């Protein structure tokens, strides 16, 4: 082989390797951001704007939303025709049409964010000044937002399923960030206000890192792309590091999650992100073969038959937990001898923090399942149920 051919091949390989996780998209104008884990999100960076396409998680042949994030407001005012596929600025931003994009001027300065999970992320990105309104304030545990609503800096928009139309009009946000639900019928009259609706469908990702990767999208919305990319890199690297450490463990403790309520025991199915997290934590999840991606309700006796083999039992519970009371409520549980670790969801920020920081939960779980690895967790969502509580 001639030397210049070898040099050419080597140079080509070098250029490919230096691509930084980006590839030119089909029309050759934009760079597709390589999302390794998120399945429902595509981000293409063009010189003057970013195009984001969300796949409909419930019908993957359809699009849930398509957004053009305009980085430069002046450019948008001058010539919006630069943006491909943007036939109109659709007021119905929940439109399933793949050919209609919503123009989103970024960074957002006055957003209405519907869930505390995303508010927690924005706080981490130091973008909470850009939050103008929130929903379901009664269930916010985040101190900053509690104070901001109490002082009137942030508006409480009411129930996330049916926010106050008048308060939204008064707030005049630059975007609404609700969580979509299958066949929910959208946000009704709110959709006709002409305010862009950005569906936060991250919770429908079926892997912990898949959901966490949406940080990169939210970062771009609030002008914090670099910080968001950096946070995700840290999340990913720590997660993979922990996962590799858990793989070294010589034992695989049998894991039982959750507890029954009113005769039903809802367990994560094999396709859920919780099941993957348990696997990555080096656990032998007792119901890993349960078909389904969400929570699967089983009868208590069906679960107990297998649960007697469990070594570790993790329970998320709102308020104090007491073993004697658990046994009195459901006597079948008295036969389960596993060590119980429980998380008081009324006192910890497990729901707010772990969706975008699965590595924290993984670290906590590995600490519980494999104390021999010596991984001490800073994040102690789960605590052992004390002897007197048993």
């Amino acid at each position, binding site marked *: 082989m001639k030397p210049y051919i070898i040099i050419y091949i080597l140079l080509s390989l070098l250029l490919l390797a230096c691509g930084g996780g980006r590839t030119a998209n089909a029309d050759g104008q934009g760079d597709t951001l390589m999302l390794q884990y998120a399945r429902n999100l595509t981000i293409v960076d063009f010189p003057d704007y970013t195009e984001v396409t969300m796949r409909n998680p419930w019908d993957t042949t359809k699009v849930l939303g398509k957004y053009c994030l305009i980085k430069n407001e002046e450019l948008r005012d001058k010539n919006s025709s630069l943006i491909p596929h943007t036939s109109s600025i659709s007021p119905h931003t929940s439109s399933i049409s793949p050919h209609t994009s919503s123009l989103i001027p970024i960074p957002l300065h006055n957003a209405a964010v519907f869930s505390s999970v995303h508010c927690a992320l924005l706080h981490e990105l130091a973008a909470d000044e850009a939050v103008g309104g929130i929903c379901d304030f009664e269930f916010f545990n985040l101190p900053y937002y509690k104070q901001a609503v109490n002082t009137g800096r942030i508006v409480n928009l009411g*129930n996330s399923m049916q926010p106050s139309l008048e308060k939204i009009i008064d707030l005049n946000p630059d975007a609404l960030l609700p969580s979509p639900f299958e066949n929910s019928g959208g946000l009704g009259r709110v959709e006709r206000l002409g305010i862009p609706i950005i569906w936060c469908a991250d919770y429908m990702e079926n892997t912990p890192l898949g959901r966490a990767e949406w940080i990169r999208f939210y970062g771009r919305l609030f002008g914090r792309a670099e910080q968001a990319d950096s946070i995700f890199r840290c999340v990913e690297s720590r997660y993979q590091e922990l996962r590799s450490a858990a793989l070294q463990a010589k034992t695989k403790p049998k894991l039982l999650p959750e507890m029954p309520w009113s005769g039903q025991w809802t367990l994560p199915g094999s396709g859920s992100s919780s099941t993957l997290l348990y696997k990555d934590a080096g656990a032998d999840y007792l119901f890993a073969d349960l078909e389904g991606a969400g929570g699967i309700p*089983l009868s208590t006796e069906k*679960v*107990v038959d297998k649960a*007697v083999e469990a070594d570790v039992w993790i329970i998320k519970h*709102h308020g104090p937990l*007491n073993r004697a009371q658990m046994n009195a409520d459901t*006597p079948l549980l*008295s*036969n389960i001898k596993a060590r119980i670790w429980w998380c008081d969801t009324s006192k910890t920020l497990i729901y707010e923090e772990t969706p975008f920081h699965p590595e924290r939960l993984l670290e906590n779980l590995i600490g519980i399942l494999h104390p021999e690895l010596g991984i001490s967790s800073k994040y102690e969502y789960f605590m052992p149920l004390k002897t007197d509580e048993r």
Partner: protein
Amino acid sequence: MKDKYKLKLLAVAMVLLSVANVLWGSLDIPVGEVWRILCGGEVEGHPAWRIIVLQGRIPQMLTALLTGSALGTCGLLLQTAFRNPLAGPSILGIDSGANLGVALVLLLLGGTATIGGMTLGGHLLVVVAAMVGALAIMALLMLLSSLLRSQVMLLITGVIISYVTGSIIQLLNYSATEQGVHSFVIWGMGNFASVGIERLPVFCALSFAGLFLAFLLIKPLDALLLGDHYAENLGIRIGRMRQMLLLVTGLLTATTTAFCGPISFIGLAVPHLARLTLGTSYHRTLMPATMLVGANLALVCNLLSTLPRDGSIIPISVITPLIGAPVVLHVILRQRAS
């Protein structure tokens, strides 16, 4: 066939269904092994089976049996007292009081409450809240019944109470967490598995007390069939009778709803099934028949709830209307024809 034989047949059916409820569950345990467990033996390799049969299936069977009897009896008492074939335990709003109590603790307080320095949670708190809610509505109805002379007015009051409690529950639901709403919905589907062996004596004592008191009402109820004036001429004190009736139906509805959640249609349909079986309206035979039919129906529903073989269960409140609705439809059509 004489009523006595029909009652015996119903009793035999109840025994058979009770046995079937112990043998059959959502987990496949061979009949021989269940028998071995019942005889005090152990099953090697399956340590959980013993506790599933003894502490799971037997209390569940007894709960279903008593709940069916109690709700059927409530329906019979109310249908006779109000001379309304569509009256049932829910018509007076007592079960909606239980619903409200549970909604308050699950949706407003998040499932835990501190009462007198003691923190309650889990199913115990739900039972206490449902009982308090149901008994509060019962006390209100008893107070109103001494003020309202007309039974129809009392009936309307019960319906209004249901609406008011329903709207409060909706309001609580509207502003509750996803978890809270889920817990409340699951509780609202009814379940005979909630009464564990520790709470079974309390449940049985309250149910038997209510059923015993119902037996004491047989004579006045028969007299009521002939009309209020005739009953008064026979020495029945209508006002006192009404108070007693509220007490019995209130106690039975509060107990069953508190321990098992709201179970629809059994109270409404069972008295009609009993009447169809016996062809009589006299309570001396109709009441025991109602208790037996109620027990049998609840045991059948409990068996049907374990039909899916993948380990899941069908909620009781999904099954009861499927059986109860045709009966109610039959009654309505028969009334229309007559």
